[in-house]
């Protein structure tokens, strides 16, 4: 049976729609519009045109032999989503949803963002399509991703720092949902990951699955065979679902999702949702989540704002439950070391999010041996993380100032 035909609302026992009744009409409207759009050649043509001439797709793959020397000699190939316009995979999904927004006649878009990659992509699409745009971002994240806040504002979006709860991505989603409940008549919520209520998990995956479809062909063309393993970082899980999906039915291709272990999956300061969480309901879907005994969401921690989320998309929970994909934690430090290693060996500065997949691939290479080929989704570039990296590695001279 194919694993590639799941269309929601449920993925096994995960998924669904656990939202206030006030949002159901909007979710139904979106589901119906998406159903029409996905079967409409005009929609596909418009999206393809933008992905080609605006985003720069297909993104290339890059083999990284100097980096791979540190991975037991396994072949490592990067899917370069960092080279997309706006600097990450997020734009693939945003353009699809922006076209949908136009088709359902709404004039205002809202979005949540953690690292700011999805917020920047949404602000970009809003500028391109002439839509009013409001981005909700946890106050903690606006501080550690200040450059992306400036980018969003330059693009004409309003950025609202969210001060509730843990002041990170989870709270930004709550605030965006509140906005949507209130303004649903003229507002569309451009959700950034494969979590949330149906249709978001299936729809966002569909807009991201181009990553794996391209990469599968590119790796075949380069090596003559499929990779032995595919690796991606997992926060909500959109870049991972994007690269996994084309390989779901290739039983010889192992799939690895690398979660943000924070200071260690055994510590309270972690975001390794599948590794240490248990099933529950958050942000509209049943999935794994970090929670206490009473079902209160536990605050996550990761050095990477984009992975600092106590939930995960329901399709990942399902793939974990049927053992089609494996999920492993990667600590803050392992990710930062991998970030520096790729920078120094290959001249590519990855996003801290993507560095989790790189760190995971280093271990994976040593496990699988020198004959293995590992495809890694390099989901975003690291420009936005320079301040964090500079502080982590002490790269800026004391008293230095940029003028």
């Amino acid at each position, binding site marked *: 049976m194919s694993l590639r035909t799941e269309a929601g609302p449920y993925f096994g026992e995960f998924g669904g729609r656990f*939202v206030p009744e006030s949002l159901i*009409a909007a979710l139904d409207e979106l589901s119906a519009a998406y159903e029409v759009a996905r079967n409409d050649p005009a929609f596909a043509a418009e999206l393809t045109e933008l992905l080609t001439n605006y985003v720069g797709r297909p993104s290339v793959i890059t083999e990284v032999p100097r980096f791979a020397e540190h991975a037991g000699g396994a072949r490592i190939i990067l899917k370069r989503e960092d080279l997309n316009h706006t600097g990450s995979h997020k734009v693939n999904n945003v353009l699809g949803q922006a076209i949908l927004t136009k088709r359902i006649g709404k004039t205002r878009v809202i979005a949540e963002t953690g690292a700011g990659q999805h917020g920047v992509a949404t602000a970009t699409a809003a500028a391109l399509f002439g839509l009013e745009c409001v981005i909700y971002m946890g106050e903690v994240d606006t501080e550690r991703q200040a450059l992306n806040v400036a980018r969003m504002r330059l693009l004409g979006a309003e950025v609202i720092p969210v001060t509730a709860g843990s002041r990170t991505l989870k709270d930004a989603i709550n605030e965006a949902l509140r906005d949507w409940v209130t303004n649903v008549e003229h507002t569309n919520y451009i959700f950034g990951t494969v979590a949330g209520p149906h249709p978001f998990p299936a729809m966002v995956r569909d807009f991201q699955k181009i990553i794996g479809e391209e990469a599968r062909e590119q790796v075949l063309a380069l090596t003559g065979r499929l990779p032995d393993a595919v690796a991606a970082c997992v926060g909500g899980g959109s870049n991972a679902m994007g690269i996994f999906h084309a390989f779901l039915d290739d039983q010889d291709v192992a799939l690895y999702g690398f979660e943000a272990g924070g200071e260690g999956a055994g510590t309270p300061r972690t975001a390794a949702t599948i590794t240490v969480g248990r099933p529950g*309901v958050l*942000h509209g879907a049943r999935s794994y989540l970090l*929670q206490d005994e*009473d*079902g*209160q969401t536990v605050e996550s921690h990761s050095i990477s704002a984009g992975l600092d989320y106590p939930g995960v998309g329901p399709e990942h929970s399902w793939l974990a439950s049927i053992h089609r994909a494996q999920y492993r934690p990667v600590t803050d430090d392992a990710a930062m070391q991998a970030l520096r290693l790729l920078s120094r060996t290959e001249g590519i500065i990855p996003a801290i999010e993507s560095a989790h997949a790189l760190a995971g691939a280093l271990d994976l290479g040593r496990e699988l041996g020198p004959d293995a080929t590992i495809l890694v989704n390099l989901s975003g570039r690291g420009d936005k993380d320079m301040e964090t990296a500079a502080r982590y590695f002490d790269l800026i001279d004391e008293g230095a100032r940029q003028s």
Partner: protein
Amino acid sequence: MTATSATASTIRARVDAGSGALVGYLPVGFPSLGGSIDAAVALVENGVDILELGLPYSDPVMDGPVIQAATQRALADGFRLRDGFTAVQAIAQQVSAPILIMTYWNPVVQFGVDRFADELAAAGGAGLITPDLIPDEASTWLDASERVGLDRVFLAAPSSTDARLRRSVEASRGFVYAVSTMGITGARADVDQAARGLVGRLREQGADSTCVGIGISTAAQVAEVLEYADGAIVGSAIVKALGDGGVEAAGELAAELATGKQLARSA
């Protein structure tokens, strides 16, 4: 929807008396567990007919700033789920008004839906209001509430289709919670005209007990809502009074809001 529940009977009695029911919300554990129990009792002693006790939750997507601030404080002060049952039991020993728990769904799932239903019934609770649980996802709760005989209040929104309204009406027992406006909790100057239309549509779909909530904060608004609905739900205004002036202020506000029932009768 059957009308055998204590909640439905209470609403029916108020409607028959010529007005309608006043439903008062406050969160358990704010300003303290004891304080919330005392405040709930004071609400009933001052004219609130049905209590809606909110369980503080980490991610309350339907709640506006006043209730968020109160529930966040309760959580910071160490609120535990079992405090909800403690509060229900303590209140039920002092007043006879039906007590509904308002809770987001995950705490119930983690506690165990059947276990939650059993403990709520044992404590003397009347049922649950579930803001993020739609009937489509509620099969375990429908079974558990049926088995234990608890009320289940689902939401209906102005944007809901007639088919969805019918589904909410059929799944609900006690009353249907008509969301007055498209938005989250919090006082508003004008309760949306959409509420009047929604209540009418719910009646067409078979509802015999509909309470309107969200945005109601004054006696005049209570009176206005009771012209067309069976009950009016007040939340943020009570929580604000409780936070600003303690149990006494909450009781005074309840007495003031209850005059809206008299206004409705004379209207």
